[in-house]
């Protein structure tokens, strides 16, 4: 359960103050499938960064499962990121020197999971993404769609409650993009909260809930259900 209570975020760009988010009130329930849409500069990336605890709100409060995150220490926020969130980025952000399996394993390493359990979970996660035969390939040996599915496997390996995807199809052709979106939707059907940021209406319109942003405010919030 995600709750924003009049969250604001400002940046200084040169002399100017840019209001990236203005008094946002928002609630996203567990298991929802939401798309945050809008043109560039509308504040949707800032929204995602604050959602994922990568950034802090200047004003307002952000409750995650009822807990106020605005007052937490950086160490506690890191630990929440590790357990509660999975990130999928437009440019994948795989570590180039590591194999697919090692990339997927990385969050478990940070968490100190025993090696035996780790191997099994990595195998299962790669299986689920249809990448069992690519486990020992490096990112440079994989196609864009495969790389993004490795990234999804990494994002879900710790079984987080929320999956945050920032333009996950932005660097992919239509067919690979479709596969990636389908993979994400399957995860959502199994219960994960899926939040996708996109400026592509064809992607955004697939979501049950569509949040349109403009100049740091929510312009429109429609739910198909």
């Amino acid at each position, binding site marked *: 359960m995600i709750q924003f209570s009049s969250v604001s975020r400002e940046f200084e760009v040169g002399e100017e103050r840019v209001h990236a988010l203005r008094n946002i009130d928002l609630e996203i329930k567990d298991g929802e499938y939401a798309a945050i849409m809008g043109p560039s500069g509308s504040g949707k990336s800032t929204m995602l*960064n604050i959602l994922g605890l990568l*950034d802090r709100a200047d004003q307002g409060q952000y409750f995650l499962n009822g807990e106020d995150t605005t007052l937490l220490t950086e*160490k506690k926020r*890191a*630990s929440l990121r590790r357990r509660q969130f999975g990130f999928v980025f437009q440019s994948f*952000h795989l570590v180039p*020197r590591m194999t697919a399996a*090692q990339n997927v394993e990385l969050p478990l390493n*940070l968490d100190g999971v025993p090696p035996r359990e780790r191997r099994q979970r990595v195998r299962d996660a790669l299986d689920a993404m249809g990448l069992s035969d690519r486990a020992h390939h490096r990112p440079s040996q994989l196609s864009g769609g495969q790389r993004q599915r490795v990234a999804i496997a990494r994002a879900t390996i710790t079984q987080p409650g929320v999956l945050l995807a920032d333009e996950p199809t932005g660097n992919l052709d239509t067919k690979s993009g479709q596969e990636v979106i389908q993979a994400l939707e399957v995860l959502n059907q199994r219960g994960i909260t899926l939040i996708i940021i996109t400026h592509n209406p064809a992607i955004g319109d697939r979501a049950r809930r569509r949040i349109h942003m403009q100049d740091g405010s929510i312009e429109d919030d429609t739910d198909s259900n």
Partner: protein
Amino acid sequence: MRLADVFRFCMSALVGARARTWLMLLAMAIGVSSVLLLTAVGEGTRRYVNDQFMNLGSHLLIVMPGKLETTGGQPPILSATQVDLTIDDAVALSQSQSIRRVAPMVLGNAPVSYGQRERAVNVIGSTAGLYGVRKLKMLSGRFLPSGDPTRGAAIAVIGDTLKTELFGSARALGERIRIDGQKFQVIGVLKEASGAGVGMDLRDSAVIPVATAQSLFDSPSLFRVMVEADGHSAISRAENAIIDILRARHNGEEDVTVITQDAMLETFNTILGSLTLAVGGIAAISLAVAGVLIMNVMLVAVSQRKTEIGLLKAIGAPGTQILRLFLAEACMLALLGAIVGLILGFAGVWGLAAALPDFPIGVPFWAPIAATATSLGTGLIFCFIPARRAAKLDPVLALAGH
């Protein structure tokens, strides 16, 4: 994070940036190997001096007439007055249980000639005791015979250099040479390098009976008495015995100075030991230079790996974990560099030892430990700033590569 995982992560980072890693390894290795080499040369010098002292004869004490006051106090108005040290004094010393051999010595410089050839050399007056005390060896003939040291004889033992200068390759034994105009018969030639070492060069000297030398140089007192203690443990007993015996013979006056070889050796060891430390310290500066290089390269690495650091933060690594990862990387680099440096250093020492077989080069036991510790310390200290910068990166900006 588990230690093995930290190790694997850092290893992949080091292998991933090969040129950078080699550069830093090289810098560390040069530092460590130069510490090793320079301390080995220092230690070799110390051993060399030690060996030289050992050649003087082991368990040696030197008795000199006159009391040397080194404790300060009143101005030494009367200290110049010396009481003679006589041959009888030397004979009396040999009565002690703690003393194995005694060699009274008179030293002078005199022209030594054979036929038309003449050469001014050191002439040493002594007894048969000198042979054992200075560990001498004969090339031919024999040394001064034992007997009453107060009786002189016109016989001489000459060093091998002096023999060659006077006789060339001709036979010297039995020939008569002139020392300061008086005739002496050559009864022996000392072996090359025999009795070499700190002090007098016996190779270019003539040894004659002590009583003869006293009258030759008109010297009522001995120059000094060399005493060999009866084993290492007897040195301090011998020292006490010398002082007691001579005080009794000199009307209760303690008017001689006794120097033990151990005391001299200890002084040299202290001087050369601190010299080795200083030289090692200078070499350690090269490790500090390596540290600056490592800091520079690591700073570049942090900015090159910004997105990776951003990703680690996004998947939940706290800043302290990232700090630890970078410091661990520095540690591994320093250790690897130290290992390469130790191999290079020991190879260098081995090479030097092969090139200079007479020089007792050797790595002091503490040098590899100190070099490794210094390289680890430098790695950690100089990596701290880059590591902290990585730990403090803002994840959003880092992911964007800014």
